């Protein structure tokens, strides 16, 4: 199935969770804020939220330093 991450198409296996998507992209789930189909996900939902074909994800990734 296909999802859209920050506008880019991403191929994922059906049933993939948000964490799977982030791992595929090489992103550390701890440092990313995820909006999925217009909803901001809680930390707990990263592992449980199942993506659908056509899901639209906005990923805001943070790098360290302050």
């Amino acid at each position: 199935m296909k999802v859209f991450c920050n506008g880019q198409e991403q191929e994922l296996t059906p049933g993939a969770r948000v964490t799977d998507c982030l791992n595929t992209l090489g992103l550390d789930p701890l440092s990313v804020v995820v909006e999925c189909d217009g909803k901001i996900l809680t930390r707990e939902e990263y592992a449980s939220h199942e993506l659908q074909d056509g899901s639209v994800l906005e990923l805001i990734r943070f790098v360290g330093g302050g």
Partner: protein
Amino acid sequence: MLLVNENEVSFQAGMTLADLVRAQGDDVDILLVNGYPATLQTVLSDGDQCWLWKRGKTPSAEEMQHLLYARHSPGVQRLLQGKMVGIMGLGGLGSVVAIALARMGIGALLLADYDVVEPTNLNRQQYFVDQVGQKKTAALRDILQRVNPHVGVTVIDQRLIEDDIGVLFKNVHALVECFDDPAMKAAGLRAVLQHLPGVFYVCASGLAGYGDNNAIRTRRLYSGVYLVGDEVSAAAPGEGLMAARVGIAAHHQANQVVRLLLGAENEAAE
């Protein structure tokens, strides 16, 4: 009517600053009109705010407050004075943001950090050698007191966690994320989007090293929510945090807070 050192003085057409200085009977050499340096020949308009001062004279506490704010554009100061800003993390970003906001005359700051000042902080953070070992909250409060004693400073001396942010900062007008740890940066944004819908938020990501100045930018994420940085330059071995570039990002953050508090986002066509 004119305001001269915050006192009302009647206005007459054609008046110059020289007329005011004569009327005050004072020996003055610093002249400001509406927050901008002026000369004795400056012709005044009705409603002008004037400051006349003698260089080196020690002001009273009340005069000090007026003088600290004399260089602000009229109206801006009064708006900022009524606002409270929270700052999460008092390192290279947070210490700079706090001082900038204090100099601009913010009404109140709510400052959070759990750490103490370390010698390795002094390459970019606004603390002094004689403050090593002090809590950052206490050390920064002392610095702010010396910069502008009229800012109300409240400190939160604990390690923040995601679940606390929505509670601890529920009364601020704007919140600035100045954490070092990327997991806390993500936690801060999540907490604000979920629990603080009416609070302006300015976070930061990507400011290490000495890369391009102009790669640091301020990007709108959501209404009232902005991200500062190049979004790439992580602090890492070989790419340390350096005073200048961290300072660029911190001042982006401080200016964005001021813009939001003064209503710039509403004016922008979005």
